[in-house]
């Protein structure tokens, strides 16, 4: 594509599902605004959804969008990647943005490579930070090697595309005075039709990535019943139960609960790891939690290296005591 035609235009692909915007949309706008200000550019939010509330699109402007491209069509009711790709690529060809930010959700990570390959441009996955260097180029920072290293990546082609991890950018402040434009776009149906969504068979009951408190158990629980104890503690703290991979593989708990490289990446206010050794794959999913507490019988367990507080001992002794103490304090307070 012709490089001269770009005027520091930044695209943010929002995610509209279940009649609202996923919070990643506002996080992307927060970062997008920062980059747009730095480069003196325009920030555009792309909305592709079905029965999109017009009021909620105003929020995108309040959070930093100068223009909103709104596609409201049944084609976007389900996450059928080809429909999104077709329309996004068309818009990119018309508008020629410099940078495209997409959420590193399952949906975003399925769509973005498809778009990048069509546009023959570079894509950087799962970034945890974006910086603009002195040359005005975007530096994309992402973990690799199961979180053991951070790579700083530059893209030679335009547009620069990146997916951004959930909960690492902040949304910025809402400004009700901000003005912007909503542009209504017609969605086009692509010809390729050999993939059919035949059923949406199970809505996720648990979205562990959104939890503020997670009480996780590992092989040290010894049995599925151990999770009842953790559930009691999680309930008291207003949190949810998590797991290392071992209990999931053993069939003690369902896979939605798994934290780590092949499970969920989480960043709660409080993460309590019980009977978890702290393998690199587990740490890759939780080491950015605000406060980490570990309970493990083995003082040399690597989990203690990332813990703020730890108790060396048997979780079956410690967790019931903790539950008892918290209950007692609650009673005293009330």
């Amino acid at each position, binding site marked *: 594509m012709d490089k001269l035609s770009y005027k520091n235009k930044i695209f943010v692909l929002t995610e509209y*599902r279940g009649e609202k915007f996923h919070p990643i949309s506002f996080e992307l706008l927060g970062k997008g605004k920062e980059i747009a200000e730095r480069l003196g550019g325009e920030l555009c939010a792309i909305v592709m959804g079905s029965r999109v509330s017009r009021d909620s699109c105003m929020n995108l402007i309040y959070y930093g969008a100068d223009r909103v491209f709104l596609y409201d069509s049944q084609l976007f009711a389900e996450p059928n990647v080809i429909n999104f790709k077709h329309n996004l690529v068309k818009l990119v060809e018309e508008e020629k943005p410099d940078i495209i930010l997409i959420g590193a959700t399952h949906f975003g990570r399925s769509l973005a490579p498809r778009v990048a*390959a069509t546009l023959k441009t570079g894509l950087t996955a799962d970034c945890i930070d974006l910086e603009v260097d002195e040359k005005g180029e975007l*530096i994309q920072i992402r973990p*690799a090697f199961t979180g053991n*290293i951070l790579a700083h990546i530059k893209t030679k082609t335009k547009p620069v595309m990146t997916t951004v991890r959930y909960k690492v950018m902040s949304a910025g402040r809402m400004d009700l005075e901000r003005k912007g434009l909503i542009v209504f776009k017609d969605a086009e149906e692509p010809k390729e039709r050999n993939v059919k969504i035949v059923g949406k068979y199970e*809505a996720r009951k648990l979205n562990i990535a959104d939890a503020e408190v997670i009480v996780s158990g590992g092989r040290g629980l010894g049995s599925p019943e151990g999770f009842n104890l953790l559930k009691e503690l999680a309930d008291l*703290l207003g949190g949810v139960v998590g797991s290392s991979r071992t209990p999931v593989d053993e069939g003690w708990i369902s896979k939605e609960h798994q934290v780590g490289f092949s499970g969920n990446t989480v960043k709660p206010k409080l993460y309590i790891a019980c009977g978890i050794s702290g393998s*690199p794959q587990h740490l890759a999913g939780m080491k950015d939690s605000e406060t980490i507490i570990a309970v493990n019988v083995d003082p040399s367990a690597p989990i203690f290296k990332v813990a703020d*507080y730890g108790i060396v001992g048997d979780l079956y002794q410690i967790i019931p005591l903790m539950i008892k103490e918290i209950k007692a*304090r609650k009673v005293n307070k009330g």
Partner: protein
Amino acid sequence: MVLKIIVLIKQVPDIERVRFDVETGRIDRSSAPAEINPFDLNALEAAVQIKEKLGGYVIALSMGPPQAVSALKDAMARGADEAILLEDKKFAGADTWATSYTLAGAIKKIGAYDLILCGEKTVDGDTGQVGAEVAEQLNIPHIYYVSRIVDFNERNVTVVSEMDDASYTIEASYPVLVSVTKDVNKPRLPTLKDKLRAMKSEVKVWHAADLEGFVDLNCVGYFGSPTNVHKVVIPQERCREGKIFRNVEEGLENILNVLKDRRLI
């Protein structure tokens, strides 16, 4: 009709053992043995299971250095009928775009196929992009985060794809690319007999010249890559309180106070 299945396999270092130079951020690949990317074992197992039920022919395809022959032999021990390694200095230093471009070129050379399987992501590159980019280069659909293969026959496959807030049952007719998570199956271990058989079988090696007419050599390897790593750093571990208690009462007292200070209780 026999189903033709291509499985994308990458050789990666054993992540538990690989060492990193904290100063330079360099990865010492010689510090750890290499193995098949764990998620690609799930992809291979899925292919072999389909073959066992329906009849079929499984090709393991990889791009990598000459040592990757051993990963492909391992793939043959685990049930692949044929293995192809794309190996050339010109392919080195490829990012996901150039990797997928080269793999797609090789797939075009292979010719007709029904199903392409790959892993959710690699433990080293960790992007999960190569699968969908291959599919786009081949202009076929892809289905990501597949945790279950529900059904398959000579014409189509039905899978469960884990999206963010829901799971979807998706039916696709061939050709299609499916990227699997570790939940899709438990890869079996090859028997000694399988290993011995694989030792004797041949891995085809295709160099850049062998892909002539299928790829533009200006688009492969480092020079064909739209992105490049400009620096690697070892993440600074957040400074943690690191208060570890051996006395349970003392530990609990401290922890409960912290929880109270932070308004968590």
